């Protein structure tokens, strides 16, 4: 849909040549994996959610001949342990974890690529450690401002009132003025009969509003991964992403010299495009790629292509 040029596909599926775990303190141990060329240019992929965990598909945004590709599961997510834990789980902890992983792998600087919450974390990381970033590729920008949270939790009722009713309808009517707290009570309840249906309802909404067209598959199967991501997302939203209002935009001044590409779909409903425009205004040196007719999803061909092109471009950067 974006234009007439044929859309590029991901690089072929590959397996990691190295996997491992890294204890980062506070009882948390991170799962990480390295794929591609062991002597290649280091690249770090930051997954979304927060709490979604990595997927093998995420290795495939990078040319495996030229990149040493690092993926890891953030605290409580994916194969990191303990799963779903909210203890000592904040944006600042995750930023420190990225630094610990970089040192552990003996990497001086890396290309950082992240979408959705991964963009939030990438911007927070670049603000704290600009010297460690060769380049930034951020997609589906989510700045974690109060307005971004209000839009997600309440504003989407305008576009998806049917999905939103199911989301809000999981709570009692008197709880709907504070949906985030209502969900927190259920997600943190020790009884699986309480927390699992809440986790499914939270995750289903998040998934259904993330693609342009309705997805045929079950958006949120019951299980520990759904519980982990719903708990962690709710925890971060509840704490305003552990960021001061506007903190990420103010942080741009510390990394504006780092080459950057900002990729955003016009119909990104969960992270509306005004976040990308706000970032681009604060960081005019970065390239803004606005993809018409596409959404938050990396399955959309124009978004995918823009990510591949950006990663390719930075593969040859000194």
């Amino acid at each position, binding site marked *: 849909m974006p234009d007439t040029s044929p859309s590029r596909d991901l690089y072929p599926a590959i397996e990691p040549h190295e996997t491992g775990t890294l204890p980062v303190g506070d009882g948390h141990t991170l799962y990480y994996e390295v794929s591609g060329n062991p002597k290649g240019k280091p690249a770090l992929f930051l997954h979304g959610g927060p709490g979604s965990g990595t997927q093998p598909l995420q290795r495939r945004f990078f040319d495996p001949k030229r990149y040493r590709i690092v993926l890891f599961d953030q605290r409580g997510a994916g194969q990191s342990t303990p799963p779903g834990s909210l203890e000592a789980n904040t944006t600042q902890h995750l930023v420190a974890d990225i630094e610990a992983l970089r040192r552990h792998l003996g990497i001086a600087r890396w290309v950082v690529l992240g979408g959705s919450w991964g963009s939030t974390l990438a911007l927070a990381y670049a603000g704290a450690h600009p010297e460690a970033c060769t380049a930034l590729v951020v997609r589906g920008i989510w700045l974690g401002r109060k307005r971004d949270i209000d*839009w997600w939790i309440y504003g989407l*009722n305008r576009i*998806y009132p049917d999905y939103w009713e199911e989301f809000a309808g999981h709570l009692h009517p008197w709880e709907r003025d504070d949906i985030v707290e209502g969900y927190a009570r259920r997600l943190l309840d020790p009884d699986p009969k309480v927390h699992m249906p809440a986790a499914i309802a939270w995750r289903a909404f998040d998934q259904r509003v993330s693609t342009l067209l309705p997805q045929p598959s079950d958006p949120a199967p019951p299980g520990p991964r759904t519980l982990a991501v719903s708990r962690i997302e709710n925890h971060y939203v509840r704490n305003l992403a552990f960021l001061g209002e506007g903190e990420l935009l103010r942080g741009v001044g510390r990394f504006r010299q780092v080459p950057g590409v900002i990729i955003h779909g016009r119909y990104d409903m969960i992270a509306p*495009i*005004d976040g990308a425009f706000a970032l681009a205004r604060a960081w005019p040196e970065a390239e803004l790629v606005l993809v018409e007719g596409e959404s938050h999803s990396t399955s959309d061909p124009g978004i995918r292509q823009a990510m591949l092109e950006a990663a390719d471009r930075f593969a040859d950067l000194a």
Partner: protein
Amino acid sequence: MPDQTLPADLYPAIEPYESGMFPVGDGHELYYELCGNPKGKPVVFLHGGPGSGSQPEHRRFFDPKRYRILVFDQRGCGRSKPIASIENNTTQHLIRDIEALREKLGVKRWVVFGGSWGSTLGLAYAMAHPEACTALVLRGIWLCRKADLQWWLYSVRSIFTEYWDDFANYLPPDQRGDILENYFKLLVHPDPAVHMPAAANWKTYESRIASLIPKAGAEKSQSPRTLAMSRIEAHYMRNAVFLPENALIEAVPRFRHVPGVIVHGRYDVICPAENAIALSRAWPEAQLTMVPDAGHSAMEPGIRSALVAASDRFAELD
């Protein structure tokens, strides 16, 4: 035999067999035209805006063999006179005009077909004259509640940030807190050097956000037709379309027995989908078609197809 697997599309372009001017009092004269089969089933097309005027394409939603198609320009717009007049121009006047046209044409009951503001007027007409409606086909539902105005004037910024900026930044910063009033002042200013550029800017904003993929060349010229659209729209908006909040939803019991079809694009950014779903909840007897890959425009392929299918269905109704 038409291929039944192909989605329905517009009927071929046709010319009216009759057209004329119809005085409705208060100094207003309406342009009207009749197409199709003079002995066919009567249908009235209600255009949008308010103030957009009719287009030759509007004839093409109806089978010309089976329908007697009335298309007319509402007060002050299109070829009606005086152009751009907002004197004696209210929803109640327009409802009376529709009735006057029905009587003039000797029509007892007709299919009422309208999109965007045409859906608002269609509902308001059905509320006042349910006995005159054989069926209602409504697209891009606009209930014009406070939240809907707020959306159009401000919230669109989340999705079409740069177009909204062009729209709002036409006003000086201290006037952007009340976009509607301050645009209205420009639109009714006697000097064309003031009202014409404001009108073009207003209409450009609306045209750019009307389809899923923004159309190139949506910029509107400074013409009397553009002035009529922008001025009449602003006039109706600042009067909350001359209806109490939620009046159209509350009126559903008066016409719920009339067969109805509601067609809406999921990514309608002018009239968010919540309008259609709110109407559908109040009027479950009506058939709701939510087109997953469409914006506001009647010409979006999925919308066009659903509208023609609905008019075909009602062509056989008594």
